């Protein structure tokens, strides 16, 4: 069996880098036959996770490096985002209360909630000084 194709990208802690990551993600997916619905979800999740690391992990204006890896094992796509900011598990955050009117919900939590809804699995671990968030989505599901 041929090894799963993968790619990685190193980003600085800068919100402008999110657009570069998006272009990179699109390019990889175009070469791997990722269907439009899956690509949309992946783009949204990468945007949310990177924004989270830059805003709440390192902090806007701080120095830091973010490493993104993508691979397509079988009929799935897997994105991994690693950073060396202080240990922070975004999955610990409580889901937003969706029973209150949208504009009355507290700021934050919405992005990670979207990630949890759009991906099939999301997992976090902290190892050797790195936060690592892994996300997987089936390419079969619409």
């Amino acid at each position, binding site marked *: 069996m041929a090894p799963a194709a993968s790619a990685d990208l190193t980003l600085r802690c800068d919100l402008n880098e999110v657009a570069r990551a998006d272009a990179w993600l699109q390019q990889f997916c175009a070469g791997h036959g990722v269907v439009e619905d899956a690509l949309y979800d992946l783009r949204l999740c990468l945007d*949310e996770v990177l*924004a989270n690391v830059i805003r709440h992990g390192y902090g806007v204006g701080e120095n830091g490096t973010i490493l993104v890896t993508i691979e397509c094992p079988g009929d799935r796509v897997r994105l991994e985002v690693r950073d060396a900011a202080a240990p922070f598990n975004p999955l610990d955050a409580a889901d937003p209360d969706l029973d209150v009117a*949208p504009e009355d919900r507290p700021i934050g939590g919405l992005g990670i909630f*979207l990630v949890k809804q759009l991906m099939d699995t999301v997992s976090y671990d902290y190892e050797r000084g790195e936060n690592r968030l892994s996300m997987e989505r089936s390419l079969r599901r619409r």
Partner: protein
Amino acid sequence: MALTVTVIERRRAQSPPATVVRLAGRLDTAAAPQAERDFAPILAGGPKVLVIDLAGLEFISSAGLRLLFDARRSVQERGGEVVFSSPQPAIRKVFEIVRALPDLAVFASDEELDDYLATMQHRTTGEV
């Protein structure tokens, strides 16, 4: 495609005057700060009816949702109303996930929007 924000004053017979903000492109993390600056003068004007036209919007992230929700709150606090029109399926899906529907008034087409605004006119003026 980056985000473009176009503002139009909408005046039609049978409808109250409305400010229409037409969004096109991507309302993501990168675009949200500029979009917030674009929205500021519109919100400062205290529109009675603000229509946010989503037909050209291709992508929205939580930063974009936050901006739209905040805009709605701001207009409502001054006694106005915000309605959304013509979201593409991908945008509608995100709205659905965060269960923004049916709290938000979202119309699938311009025709539906027209009908609603006409009803609103009748409600406020008592015209038939």
